[in-house]
């Protein structure tokens, strides 16, 4: 791994300045993606700016409407949070199934969203729950945030500070994990919200996370697993890779969606 200059600023402004002052700076949160990337030499930044020294980027707050999660909050903290378990149990459940215990003790929600891996779990929750990504510069609606494989609408040097979720009426997440990495081969988050039924699919799309419109329409009529009988996302726009072919992923999406609906329906 090529050496770099390491800093750990203790406020947001200093982090932004450090990034601006660098010819090639990279923020680091949990490091669970960035460190493997550095080891492989896929990125060779001059400066690594650790966000973990910024105290107010971490933590979970509940209000009457939902939950706000700080960007450097670890997956394990979300999974164990009383407040999240109360307001959005499906989100705590999702966080508790990311990777493995060691990954959950380091990895953060902000890092996961900024990275926008097409097989990551959080993007499905953010899109299905119509969450808002808050940065040091603005607020970005979920729909506008994700922008294709490993790409988001974040600008150069922009820092995610928190993510705001409204509590749904009911929701559930089901994933078929890759047995080695635990990343989603297919993951489906189903939510019945004030904005209607939303179904978000991760692990499968050639452009990353997406909404399954036909499933949403069927579930708006009848929120039951049976409503999805005969509905499948076309395989044309799905990924084929060493782990699974597109038609297999298409099949899994319907299976995971039905399981998620059955689970969500049973909770309310």
């Amino acid at each position, binding site marked *: 791994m090529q050496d770099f200059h390491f800093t750990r600023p203790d406020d947001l402004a200093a982090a932004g300045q450090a990034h601006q002052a660098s010819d090639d700076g990279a923020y680091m949160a949990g*490091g669970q993606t960035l460190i493997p990337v550095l080891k492989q030499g896929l990125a060779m930044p001059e400066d*690594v700016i650790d966000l973990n020294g910024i105290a107010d980027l971490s933590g979970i707050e509940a209000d009457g409407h939902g939950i706000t999660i700080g960007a450097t909050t670890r997956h394990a903290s979300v999974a164990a949070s009383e407040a999240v378990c109360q307001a959005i149990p499906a989100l705590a459940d999702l966080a508790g199934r990311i990777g493995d*215990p060691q990954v959950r003790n380091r990895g953060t929600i902000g890092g996961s969203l900024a990275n926008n891996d097409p097989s990551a779990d959080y993007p499905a929750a953010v899109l299905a729950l119509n969450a808002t990504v808050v940065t040091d510069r603005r607020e970005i609606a979920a729909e506008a945030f994700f922008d294709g494989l490993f790409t988001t609408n974040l600008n150069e040097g922009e820092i995610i500070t928190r993510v705001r979720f409204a509590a749904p009426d009911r929701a559930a997440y089901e994933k078929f994990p890759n047995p080695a990495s635990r990343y989603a081969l297919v993951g489906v988050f189903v939510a019945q919200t004030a904005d209607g039924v939303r179904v978000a699919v991760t692990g499968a799309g050639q452009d990353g996370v997406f909404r399954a419109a036909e499933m949403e329409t069927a579930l708006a009529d009848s929120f039951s697993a049976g409503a999805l009988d005969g509905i499948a996302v076309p395989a044309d726009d799905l990924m084929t890779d060493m782990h699974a072919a597109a038609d297999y992923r298409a099949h899994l999406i319907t299976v995971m969606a039905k399981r998620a609906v059955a689970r969500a329906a049973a909770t309310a």
Partner: protein
Amino acid sequence: MPDITLNVNRQAVSKTVEGRTLLVEFIRETLGLTGTHMGCDTSQCGACVVHLDGKPVKSCTVLAAQADGAEVKTIESLAPEGEMNPMQRAFHEHHGLQCGFCTPGMVMTAMALVAENPDPTEAQVRHGLEGNICRCTGYQNIVAAVLDGAKAMRG
């Protein structure tokens, strides 16, 4: 280059490291604590697990500089030289290792698991070990060892 001060196995350590120095490299090469192993470069095997402020982490996926101010515990901290703690003894008794390469990480993960959940079910043990890969045993004896080690530790 970052100057770091941390506590490793209850001893204060101050050193200068490179930005890129991994916590596992610092533990093995700078401190000479070679019980912590390195089995992959993809953050998947868990041979390198140590406790960072009481939580199990993959020390190959944490920068030494990020551990500044933290408390680190490695496999060497579990029992005095030549002795075994109840979890280590359970691995020994249940034949929970063959080559032993994964064992330090398995035991450190198991110790964290029982600290959080002293009486885990078999399913909880299997879920808890998802980040630790063993290429020898087939896991059966590891799971048996963790269940029995947990029991021994409950006393």
